[in-house]
């Protein structure tokens, strides 16, 4: 948020180390959370569905950013790790009657275990090779889940789950689902913010910036790379489990390579190495097709086309704009939306006396 730091003198170490050291920023952050909780008061059911999708995507994107943006390990397998969490939650709920608030961490934990396993190649290889190794993880996990009836629940690889309930309340409307997702999202956000400024987070950043130097100053690369994979996959697993409870269905088609690429696009457009950037990117990528439909429908209506005749065009246009945006951001603003937001903030910091 936009705030001015003048007149704030920290007298304690705790005060200086606080997440938001400036009072105004703290109130703004709290206010932001309150606003988030109050969104359902003004939004209709359709808009809530969009907000829910954004919240879900944010959780996954934050997880990926911890791995890619902070630790510098490229991963093309994020979708597969989400898939692991999703099926774990579905299996636990349908077969063992586990409530959703236990299914979430369980999905995260299993995904973290799988993610750590596929992170092992990162100890021997990096960069390009790692990108290809995680691509293999995506395919291997997808195939394994698809071809083991015990996991995927038969021919369609689809598991239907019952409506989740919380203390006897069925979570069956978009509004209630929002209150299922939002607390998880807020916890994920704050946890990530705190993680990346802790000892562990600094170790991640050291590994990213120069692994040899990190090793020399005593960072155990082996441990921290695996830890980054574990944390990132945990986030992915929780997001995947939330997908299951949100849609009441676990299906591999929601977590293909396209999904992994979309999450990568989110953090690149949002800003690598920024928690807020992950959320901005998630908002952007989730809103993109929705806004596009509105715009194209509007233009089509002007010229009198029926929607059916432009559906194909729309799908293709979406792909082109999606790919084009990735290219544009990478060539023009590699630090993403977060940097743009920072520029705006910096401009108004001393405004109107910015000289």
């Amino acid at each position, binding site marked *: 948020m936009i705030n001015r730091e003048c007149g704030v003198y920290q007298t304690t170490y705790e005060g200086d180390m606080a997440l938001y050291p400036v009072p105004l920023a703290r109130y703004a952050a709290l206010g932001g959370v309150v606003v988030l909780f109050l969104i359902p008061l003004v939004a209709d059911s359709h808009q809530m569905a969009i907000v829910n999708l954004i919240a879900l995507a944010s959780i996954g994107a934050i997880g990926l950013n911890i791995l890619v943006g902070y630790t510098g390990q490229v991963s093309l397998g994020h979708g597969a790790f989400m898939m692991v969490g999703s099926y774990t939650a579905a299996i636990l709920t349908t077969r063992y009657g586990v409530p959703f608030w236990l299914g979430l961490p369980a999905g995260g934990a299993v995904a973290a275990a799988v993610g750590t396993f596929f992170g092992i190649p990162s100890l021997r290889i990096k960069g390009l090779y790692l990108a290809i190794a995680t691509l293999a993880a995506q395919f291997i996990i997808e195939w394994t889940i698809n071809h083991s009836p015990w996991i995927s629940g038969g021919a369609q690889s689809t598991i239907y789950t019952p409506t989740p309930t919380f203390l006897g309340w069925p979570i069956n409307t978009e509004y209630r689902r929002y209150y299922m997702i939002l607390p998880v999202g807020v916890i994920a956000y704050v946890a990530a913010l705190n993680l990346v400024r802790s000892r562990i987070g600094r170790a991640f950043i050291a590994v990213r910036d120069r692994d040899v130097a990190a090793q020399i100053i005593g960072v155990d*690369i082996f441990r921290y790379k695996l830890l980054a994979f574990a944390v990132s996959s945990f986030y992915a697993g929780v997001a995947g489990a939330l997908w299951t409870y949100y849609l009441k269905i676990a299906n591999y088609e929601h977590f293909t390579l396209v999904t992994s690429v979309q999450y990568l696009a989110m953090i690149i457009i949002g800003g690598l190495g920024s928690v807020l950037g992950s959320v901005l990117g998630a908002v952007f990528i989730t809103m993109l097709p929705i806004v596009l439909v509105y715009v194209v429908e509007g233009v089509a209506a002007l010229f009198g086309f029926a929607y059916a005749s432009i559906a194909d065009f729309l799908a293709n246009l979406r792909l*082109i704009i999606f790919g084009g945006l*990735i*290219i544009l951001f990478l*060539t023009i603003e590699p630090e993403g939306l977060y940097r743009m937001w920072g520029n705006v903030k910096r401009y108004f910091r001393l405004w109107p006396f910015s000289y």
Partner: protein
Amino acid sequence: MAFFFDLLVNGLMIGSMYALVAMGFVLIYKATSVINFAQGELVMFGGYIAAAMVSLYHLPLAVAVPVLLGSMVVLGFALERGVLRPLVGRNVISVVMVTIGLAQVFQGLAAMVWGAATINMPLPIRLEPYIVWEVFISPINLVAAVASAGFLVAFAYFFRKSRMGIAMRAVANDQQAAMAVGINVRLIFALSWAIAGLAAGIGGIVWGNMLGVDTHLALVGLKVFPAVILGGLDSVPGAVLGGLIIGAVESVAAGYVDPYVGGGTKDFVPYVLMIVVLMIRPYGFLGREIIERV
């Protein structure tokens, strides 16, 4: 045993096509250190251009093929110039993501221009398979193998003998040294993209004939990664070797395992093989051992 040889021979022929696509990939990587995730999309695009000219606009093949190859070269130049050049010297993930973005644009563009329906890519060859010692060999596979072998021989010659080819090898070896002796490194970058486009164009014609041209043709690109890792990312002979091995292994594995698991082995086995290679010998069979221990 005939079943095994049947699978092996046809796998090797498919593998020769993988080798062709993989070669374009390795060329780009060697010369410009860019991992091209859009190689499959280049193949698809080539297939679309060829199929559209032959099936939709009814041009004779003798016109279509040169036009296709010409436009693929131009496309290669344009890509290098417009998209990849601003990214020289940037970190791995940016470059990877740009080519992924490129892949998306190609997918959307091809489907938008030519429609989502599958287009046929007819070639004047017979359809009934030849039978040699109980092994069925389909003519298109034979054409594929001959085409890619011809391409590979031509480029082996180009690299050994021509001035430009030697310059490309110099750039692949050491960019700064190449620049210091007066080689136009930018031109070489563009040229390697053009050659990769050319390889993809030939791949597009043959694959398009086998599978029909639609956006699924781009999935060929996903087979390139196991092939190049197996052979070594920076080795052209390695790409050929890797392509052949991947083709043979996936064909044999699919033949024997598919009945038990219900299909899909073809897409799975190459990646398992690749993970194993990455763990044991990350630089592949013929790659340079410059991977640092991390």
